């Protein structure tokens, strides 16, 4: 039995969970030589993003932009980057992901893209600090790097949308991102922008791929698209989809199918 204090990549586990952006964000770091101060740096960064993008803080750049007190060109670089991403995603999803249409009054709310984007940035911060084996789980949206221990990939369960004591599937991921949209996490909070009604075909839709920014937005968009969602995900190079239908069948696209874990016991 290995001494857990001996740094044999992945044998030491450090975890911190904080509540930011209205959700729990947990970092699980398996690289023993990375200084623990990286936790402070990453969570400080994420709290800062929350402040700059918050739609609940009147003085946030996003709200000042919405009131016309600020021009896009005067915003901080990360706000400009996220705004550009919102537009890119609106075009790429044929309007299913629209940072403006998601709000009843049509005002700009990039919240739907900020969390995935910020958590992906946090992953790059960890990588720049020398981390090679870690996960970040932000309310079920996951960035994974490396492996939890030698010889195997991260096993990521997709919670079943109906039976909460079961997983609907398990995916084995090395470097990658997973985001799940559904009716179960916060109530029925995802609607088709064009109709304002909840999408009816799926109870949950999971997207896996290289970038959490896109996986998160694609999951939101594909869920809103309804029955055509998984096929649309499959058309995005490098991304895969997994969905649980309202009649509790599962739907896989090829990229996701290749990551599925063999059933155990």
């Amino acid at each position, binding site marked *: 039995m290995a001494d857990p204090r001996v740094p044999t990549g992945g044998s030491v586990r450090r*975890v911190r969970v904080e509540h930011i952006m209205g959700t729990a964000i947990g970092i699980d770091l398996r690289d023993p030589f990375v200084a623990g101060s990286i936790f402070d740096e990453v969570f400080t960064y994420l709290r800062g993003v929350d402040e700059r993008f918050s739609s609940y803080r009147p003085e946030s750049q996003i709200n000042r932009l919405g009131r016309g007190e600020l021009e896009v060109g005067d915003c901080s670089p990360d706000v400009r980057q996220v705004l550009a991403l919102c537009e890119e995603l609106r075009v790429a999803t044929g309007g299913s992901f629209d940072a403006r249409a998601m709000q009843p009054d049509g005002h700009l709310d990039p919240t739907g893209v900020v969390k995935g984007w910020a958590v992906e940035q946090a992953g790059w911060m960890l990588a720049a600090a020398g981390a090679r084996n870690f996960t970040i789980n932000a309310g*079920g949206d996951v960035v994974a790097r490396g492996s939890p221990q030698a010889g195997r990939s991260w096993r990521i*369960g997709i919670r079943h949308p109906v039976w*909460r004591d079961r997983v609907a599937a398990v995916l084995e991921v090395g470097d990658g991102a997973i985001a799940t949209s559904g009716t179960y996490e916060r109530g029925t909070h995802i609607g088709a922008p064009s109709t304002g009604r909840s999408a009816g075909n799926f109870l949950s839709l999971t997207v896996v791929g290289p970038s959490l920014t896109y996986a998160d937005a694609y999951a939101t968009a594909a869920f809103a698209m309804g029955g055509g969602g998984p096929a649309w995900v499959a058309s995005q190079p490098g991304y895969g989809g997994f969905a649980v239908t309202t009649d509790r069948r599962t739907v896989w696209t090829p990229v996701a199918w290749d990551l599925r874990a063999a059933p155990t016991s």
Partner: protein
Amino acid sequence: MPKRGIVASLLTAAGLVLLLSFKTPTQTSPTADGLDVGQRSTPEPARSNTAPSSRADSPTALPTATPTPQTASDTVTGPVIPTRFGNIQLKVTFSDGKIADVTALQLPNDRPRSAYISSVVAPFLRQEALQAQSAQIDLLSGATYTSEAYAESLQAVLDQNHG
């Protein structure tokens, strides 16, 4: 903390209660020293393997318990995991290397509301932990806050138990 974050947390907790009230007919009551979420008694633990409680993000949180072969039943106490709703700490009983039962030594119960939610949620979380074991997962896409801390505490137990 933005207002909406708090509201979302409450909604999540309320949603959990609504959902779980259909699933857990047997509810336990909070007691002064915590909450027993086990629906059956611990099956004769052969020995106890108690680790010091500590924050999981500090180097001192490295597993310090001596790993023991899992041939008989064995009880391991996890670290205290702080959440914004209160502390979570679990005791796990192993039998032949498998999780036989999960008992919460601490769950959020500082306010009557929290205690009620804990009493309803805990049996469900225990079941979820047992299920997660059979799926052998590292993390869950779609987890809620309290269940995540619970999973963290459980994982700490599993790590120290399996080296």
